């Protein structure tokens, strides 16, 4: 209970502090992140354009060499009469040199326009040598699209086939080297006469491998054909999946590229997860025209890179954030504890003041923060005011209660105990006497001739007389004795601790003498006479009512005997 409020406050303050620092850090991070992402996309896009140019150059260069070969005299004049053997040898020598100096050329073939487009000269790169295809192995190629498409071309034109997968058997390791390749081919004309075509198989893998080496680490290169099927992919088994019927396509793998195939354009993107702090990547894809001989075709070149700089920044920021958090949390807790004390201590004091008020203890308001100017000060002040008001009201109530009690037990005129109060005092005194084994006397006093005085001199005189009697009775009795007004002009006395009847008689006789002296009642000098009946405890009775009754009877006897006298109950003859 003591600490609850301050703990709550501490928690709230600390949480606010943490939230503020997290939000601030995230905003800072978010802003820098966006800048980095933008920058990364731009960089990838620029790199991509450079790569695209280099690829286009590599393709164009192969085409230029095909055109160069197609202009070769030995091939143009191959079917002319003369030494065909010599032409064959010089074509072979040229092919061999061309393959030797172009590591990315996998084969060069001279194809006849006749004989179902049978190969005339063909060289193929093998593992680490070149192989001239023997005559007997030369093939008829009329059914190959690149052949019949090239044969339709005009001099100086070249056809490029769609990129497909080339394969070379590596004998030493009994495995296959596969690579993206395309074939560039050009028709050979001798004047207007179509002689054949020359075709070069180009290994694009060589080009791409050299491109890849120039890429920053963590950046992956992608190449896809017009349908989005991968030709180059970081996972080799996704390359040329379409040859086996698999659909490994960039528009299926990159959400941002879903519309690329329908509408070829440059697209750059970042992995689009606002809160993903780890695996952030950026990508840039662009179409490369791969049109050939009137056929429209396109390739898609793409770079996808993990954002290293962003990653570094993220971990840096997170470290900083953690330190900040620890610091802010510590400060937050400290401040919260101080604030908690500042707020909760006066409240605790108020609470304890309230408790003591409840318990009826006197209270000290000095500790309360009465002088504070804030709400707690106002609360303390109004609490103090309230406590004082309660005190005053309690006091008033007590006074009222006491006066009510007095009224209910006393005669308003004389201020003497009334009949019922007298009875309770008598009972109390009897019990006391019983315990002390002492005696007490009850005296019943009735004023003689009170009515005539009342009638003669008026009610005021009567009242004055009764007051005078009361004063006289009071004055002549001891502390331990009791005098009460029984009714009208009747009074009762209790005399405690009396030794014998004589002592009582002497007190009463003395009393009657005092009354018989002249008293000033209004403006008259009057003696007062009274008849007194006396009963004794335990001699006459042990009951309060009986004692009163007996005293009354004895008083009546005293009246009969001639007034202004006293009579003991025990002395009066029973009737």
């Amino acid at each position: 209970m003591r600490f609850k409020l301050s703990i709550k406050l501490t928690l709230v303050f600390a949480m606010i502090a943490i939230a503020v620092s997290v939000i601030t850090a995230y905003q800072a991070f978010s802003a820098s992140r966006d800048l980095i992402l933008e920058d990364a996309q731009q960089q990838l896009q620029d790199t991509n354009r450079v790569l695209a140019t280099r690829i286009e150059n590599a393709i164009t260069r192969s085409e230029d060499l095909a055109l160069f070969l197609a202009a070769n005299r030995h091939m143009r004049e191959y079917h002319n009469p003369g030494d065909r053997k010599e032409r064959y040898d010089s074509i072979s020598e040229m092919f061999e040199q061309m393959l030797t100096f172009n590591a990315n050329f996998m084969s060069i073939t001279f194809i006849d326009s006749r004989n179902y487009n049978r190969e005339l000269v063909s060289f193929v790169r093998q593992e680490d040598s070149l192989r001239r295809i023997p005559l007997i192995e030369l093939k008829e190629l009329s059914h190959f699209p690149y052949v019949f498409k090239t044969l339709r071309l005009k001099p100086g034109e070249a056809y490029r086939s769609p990129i497909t997968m080339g394969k070379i058997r590596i004998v030493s390791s009994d495995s296959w080297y596969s690579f993206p390749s395309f074939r560039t081919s050009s028709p050979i004309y001798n004047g207007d006469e179509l002689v054949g075509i020359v075709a070069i198989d180009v290994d694009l893998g060589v080009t791409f491998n050299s491109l890849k080496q120039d890429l920053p680490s963590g950046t992956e290169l992608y190449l896809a054909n017009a349908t989005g099927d991968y030709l180059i992919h970081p996972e080799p088994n996704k390359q040329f999946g379409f040859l086996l019927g698999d659909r490994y396509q960039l528009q299926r793998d990159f959400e941002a590229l879903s519309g690329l195939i329908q509408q070829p354009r440059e697209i750059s993107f970042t992995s689009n997860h606002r809160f993903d702090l780890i695996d952030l990547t950026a990508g840039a894809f662009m179409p490369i025209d791969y049109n050939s001989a009137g056929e429209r075709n396109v390739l898609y070149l793409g770079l996808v890179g993990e954002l290293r700089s962003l990653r570094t920044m993220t971990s840096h920021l997170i470290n900083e954030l953690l330190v900040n958090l620890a610091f802010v949390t510590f400060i937050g807790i400290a401040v919260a504890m101080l604030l908690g004390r500042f707020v909760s201590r006066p409240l605790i004091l108020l609470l304890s003041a309230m408790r003591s008020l409840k318990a009826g203890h006197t209270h000290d308001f000095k500790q309360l923060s009465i002088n504070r100017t804030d709400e707690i000060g106002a609360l303390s002040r109004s609490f103090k005011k309230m406590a004082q008001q309660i005190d005053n009201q309690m006091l008033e109530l007590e006074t009222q209660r006491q006066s009510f009690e007095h009224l209910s037990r006393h005669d308003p005129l004389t201020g003497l105990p009334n009949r019922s109060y007298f009875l309770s005092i008598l009972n109390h005194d009897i019990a006391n006497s019983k315990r002390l084994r002492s005696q007490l006397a009850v005296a019943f006093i009735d004023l003689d001739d009170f009515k005539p005085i009342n009638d003669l001199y008026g009610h005021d005189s009567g009242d004055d007389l009764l007051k005078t009697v009361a004063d006289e009775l009071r004055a002549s009795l001891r502390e331990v004795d009791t005098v009460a007004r029984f009714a009208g002009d009747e009074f009762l006395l209790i005399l405690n601790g009396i030794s014998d009847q004589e002592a009582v008689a002497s007190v009463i006789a003395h009393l009657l003498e005092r009354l018989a002296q002249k008293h000033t009642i209004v403006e008259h000098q009057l003696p007062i006479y009274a008849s007194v009946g006396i009963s004794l405890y335990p001699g006459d009775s042990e009951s309060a009512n009986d004692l009163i009754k007996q005293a009354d009877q004895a008083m009546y006897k005293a009246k009969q005997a001639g007034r202004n006298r006293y009579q003991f109950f025990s002395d009066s003859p029973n009737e």
Partner: protein
Amino acid sequence: MKTNTLTLTAMVSGLVTLPQVCLATDFRVMAWPGYVSDSAILEFEKRYQVNVELSVIQTDDQMWTQINAPKGKAYDVFSLNTAELQRYIDNNKVQTIDTVLIPNHKNQQAPFDELHSIQGLSRNSQLYAVPYTYSEMGLIYNTDEFSKPPDSWNILWDPNYRGRVLAYEGSVHNFTLAGLSIGIRDPFNQSNEQLISSSKRLIELRRNVRTFYSSPAQSLDYLINEKIVLAFANYGSQQLNDLHKHQLEMAYTIPKEGALAWLDTWAISQSSPSRLLAHQWINFMLSTEVSEQLTREQGLANTINPNKQYFKNDNIHWLQPVENPQLRSELWQQIQQGVSEVSFNP
């Protein structure tokens, strides 16, 4: 602090990436072009919470290579014709099928209501495949070039049409077709001498064709762009459907030698780890929606509303298992590469 960083980032990224994690397992399907639509895949994926990976094959040789690839993918189901199915059963590449798990089998009408009565589907009274679609492989011809339909397959070899003929890439059918054209009585079951004759015939065909196609899309491309006047329709009614769609001046006929016809089925790969799901796939393919979509969009027959007369036609030669598909494939590779004579070492 380093550990904390890692934990925090791991937590953060965990929170973010969790909902994106694909819970579904992969279900691999290999089928012919047009057999499985994208909408059917989406529906199946949604219904069974799997990720369907579809491979579209274009020749029987390709499929056999894929299924037998030592490091290949574990396919769950694939579509193949009843003749091809036999070597898959022989080599234990397919699982038995329980029609109890295929309630939609009740949709299939005669003759497909009695699966055990259909040749090639079962062995030792165990069912291995459920029919899905069928077609004969007829002859496509240009109506401008031919006032009446060519009556013989030999028209493909006619030098008048050299460079304007389109043939198909598959080895098995080509040998059967070559056998049919030179009058071999049982073109599905050729002796070595007959295979050599057929090889010669196919080299002649190669010299007469513009090229060989593999997919329906490729054939359509050549039909439109290469002035083709005659084509062997490996995909049958599916290709006919394409011709109509593109309003080409082409028609379709069945020559007097008759047409080869395939009955394609769904089979469950021996390597499938999810036998139940595979049955659910087949069941899904036999649903009215999917089967009718196949006919509506691809022009392929379905087994729910089959043409009963079709199966009584004498001119239809249902594909039979061939004597040696491997040998046919090897010979075809040589021919395809352009040899002028096959080297034959059986």
